[in-house]
């Protein structure tokens, strides 16, 4: 019961936060010199009447505050509005969200499944040769800019012909059997996943290693060892449980990056995800689409943090007593 109350309080807190975020984003976009009609204005075949009609359709003839109110009103009702091309924003997002989710879920799953054990492994074998090798590898992973790495892999794909050059499906996807379809998608996913995996694995592994090392150095671990517990029990039963707290917070952030974390890689690999859609929307100042994506980002971040906090409450009795 108490926990439900806590969640309710947290949700109430997000409302003013969302209002502030939306206000700031809306005004920044509208006050920037980007004119959504610039292209049309320079097109000799577009008449003055057409320009006038477009201005009215996009609501650009009204003061910013009225535009914001209009947007906010329909947003509260759950209507994300239409893009500057007249398509439903929600339909546009629906097209892309599954693709982005596919990519990020695969990446997050892989990084956690390998990152956490590798971190533990490195911490347990602290200062050994194996730890050093892992340190070198993860340092490379952290140092390499994702954009550059993606371009390198893309060139690799072109030169060897082993991988498709970007995209998510082949052009004859429609005629494939189910197994072929799965293979086709996997084949396309390998390179972008490799990029994102390398980058985020490094951070995660370092984090896990650091946490565990901190804990292993503490008095109660020394005590546990001293009283003769097996090394396995010391590490996996006592130390790990305490080392995992910061990881849960991290997981909350990972949740936030589910929909927005891969934009750059998506762009390089021409991956049909949200990132590319939103980049293009920003460039053309497509206000409803940009606002929708910013709000999604904000909501996901808040939600991610909330989930992390709840998980913490469940795993850590100390926090339970303080927070609730």
């Amino acid at each position, binding site marked *: 019961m108490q926990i439900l109350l806590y969640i309710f309080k947290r949700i109430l807190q997000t409302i003013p936060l969302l209002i502030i975020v939306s206000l700031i984003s809306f005004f920044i976009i509208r006050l920037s010199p980007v004119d959504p009609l610039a292209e049309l204005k320079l097109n000799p075949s577009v008449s003055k009447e057409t320009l006038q009609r477009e201005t009215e359709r996009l609501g650009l003839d009204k003061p910013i505050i009225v535009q914001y109110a209009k947007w906010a009103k329909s947003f509260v009702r759950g209507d994300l509005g239409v893009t500057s091309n007249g398509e439903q924003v929600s339909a546009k997002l629906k097209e892309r969200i599954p693709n982005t989710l596919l990519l990020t879920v695969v990446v997050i799953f892989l990084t956690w499944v390998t990152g956490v054990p590798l971190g533990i492994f490195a911490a347990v074998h602290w200062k050994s040769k194996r730890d050093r090798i892992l340190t070198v590898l993860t340092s490379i992973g952290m140092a390499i800019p994702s954009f550059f790495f993606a371009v390198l892999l893309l060139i690799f794909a072109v030169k060897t012909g082993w991988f498709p050059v970007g995209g998510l499906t082949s052009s004859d996807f429609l005629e494939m059997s189910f197994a072929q379809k799965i293979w086709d998608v996997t084949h396309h996913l390998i390179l972008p996943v490799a990029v994102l995996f390398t980058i985020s694995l490094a951070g995660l592994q370092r984090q896990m290693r650091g946490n565990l090392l901190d804990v292993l150095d503490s008095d109660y671990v020394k005590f546990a060892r001293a009283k003769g517990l097996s090394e396995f029990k010391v590490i996996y039963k006592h130390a790990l449980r305490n080392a995992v707290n910061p990881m849960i917070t991290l997981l909350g952030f990972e949740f936030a990056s589910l929909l927005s974390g891969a934009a750059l890689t998506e762009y390089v690999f*021409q991956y049909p995800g949200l990132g590319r859609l939103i980049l293009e929307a920003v460039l053309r100042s497509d206000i409803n689409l940009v606002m929708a994506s910013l709000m999604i980002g904000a909501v996901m971040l808040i939600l991610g943090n909330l989930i992390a906090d709840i998980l913490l409450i469940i795993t850590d009795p100390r926090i339970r007593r303080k927070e609730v």
Partner: protein
Amino acid sequence: MKRIGYILVVLLLLLLCVNRDLPVAESEAPQTAFAAPQQVVFPPRAKTVTLKGVDYLQSQAPAGKFGGALVMSTIGEGPKTFNPFNTKDATSAALSELMYDGLVTTDPQTGETVPKLAKSYEIKGNDYIMHLRRGIKWSDGKPITADDVVFTWRNIIFDGFGNTSARDSVVIDGKLPTVRKADDYTVIFTTPQPFAPFLRLLAGPIAPKHVFEPAVKKGKAYFETFFSTNANPKNFVTSGPFRMVEYVPAQRVVYERNPDYYIINTENRKLPYLDKVIYLIVGDLNNEVLKFEGGEIDLINLHGANAARFKARERYSDFAMYNLGPDTGTMYMGINQNNRRNEKGEFYVNSKKQKWFRDKNFRQAVDFALDRKNMVLNIANGLAAPLFTPESLNSVFLNKTLKPYGRNLDKSRELLKKSGFYQDGKGRLTDKYGNRVEFDLYTNAGNTEREAIGVMVKQDLEDLGMKVNFKPIEFNSLVNKLVSTLDWDMVIMGLTGSPLEPNGGKNVWLSDGTLHVFNQRLEKDRRSKRLPYEARIDELFKQGALAVKFEDRKKYYDEYQKIVYDEKPFIYIYSPIRIAAMRKKFKNVFPSSLGGLTHNVEEIYAEDGK
């Protein structure tokens, strides 16, 4: 010592990479490699043959193999609609054009207007009589008749549904043409007065009445969403060589052949040859090049350095390169001749600068100081042609009597002297009132080509003692300056025109046009005084549109080009040359500067049938 060894190894590796990326053949100058468009032997023009009561159009190109797919690409976000009447961007237009044929089309070789969906046409005074083909069908089996044509023009275009630019372009002195059905296979268009560009406008798509009528009845707002990108392609009823089967957002658009198309080959078999046409949607130029190199696309337009790189490899590769001649795009430098004031009573252009910019000698002096040849070689990698007229070099209306010339600083100095400009002791150019000649030159930041031109223009003009402040600014801000705040001195911009119809440039050249940037009149300045040459161009454009015979029209448009050539409101710099590469396995490819490589997509076939 050890460290130096490592560094050497790394350097050696780097060197190896550099060597591998620079093929020996690259030293061959690209401009000689692309000396002239290759000679293309076009097949005779297609003719109408009647078989079992159906008026087919028979292609005269060599018969080929059926089957296979052609993969092309489109850069950007992909299509925004599949309704050919709603398209506002080139990608959507190109993608829907593949599905809908027009009554007439442009002969890619000569630029003449030739019948397509129409069997033939006659022009009698202001009447354009279209004879339709008998027995040809929409993709759902219903016949294509005069009702469809009348419906398209009367109920969609004239009534202002969708993108109204088609309607705007046929309005003559505020009046619309009329269209009526004479019988099931004859349609008569009547223009309120002679209007030469009208015939070419009939190349627009024709809609199937039985599919579009319900949408039109639901009003304009509904029509905007009709056949949007979310529509089920199964419902598309088309007349073109291909029809869409699949659209995957941000990835591709797939078309399959229309099995009942009305064009047949010399063996009387129905075209198109290709089973599929696929457009991949790619985000940017670099990705497109990678996809071509990776073999995922079959056709690509190349620019600058990439063109040179591919040319060097052409001999060992499975693609052939084509020079499609000068582009319809023009790169120019505009000079602001505005002498009006804004709402606050301030001049848009500083009054001392106005005296320079409105001085023809000054503008000509600037023109003679530019080294176009140098810009073509250094900025466009030789893949461009110096330009001196507003009509693009492949335009059928190009005034060929206007001769190109080179840089001539002496002439520039002479012209400046005539207007009282002089260089002071330090070589600085000063006008006769003692003001230092200094102005701003704008272009849109991020466009590397225009930025490079700006730098060279600045250098060229500084040889005359002018001080040029070159300022690349953000595109939107630049547009705002050009069309609203009007506070700019000179600008480097580009425009695309039509090689067939100069009337399309009326928004630029008419003195109250929306893009008449060199002397832009905002709403409140509508009635302000015209410069004599502006008034003359207004008159010439009016006459040019009214005249019907090509020779008569050419006279008017020749004069307008001559005026621009002399008065230099815009100083034209160059026109890029279009280079394209296409896999060699595709046959029946007849490259043309007017139609590109795929103007005859129904005739193109893959040698291996794949």
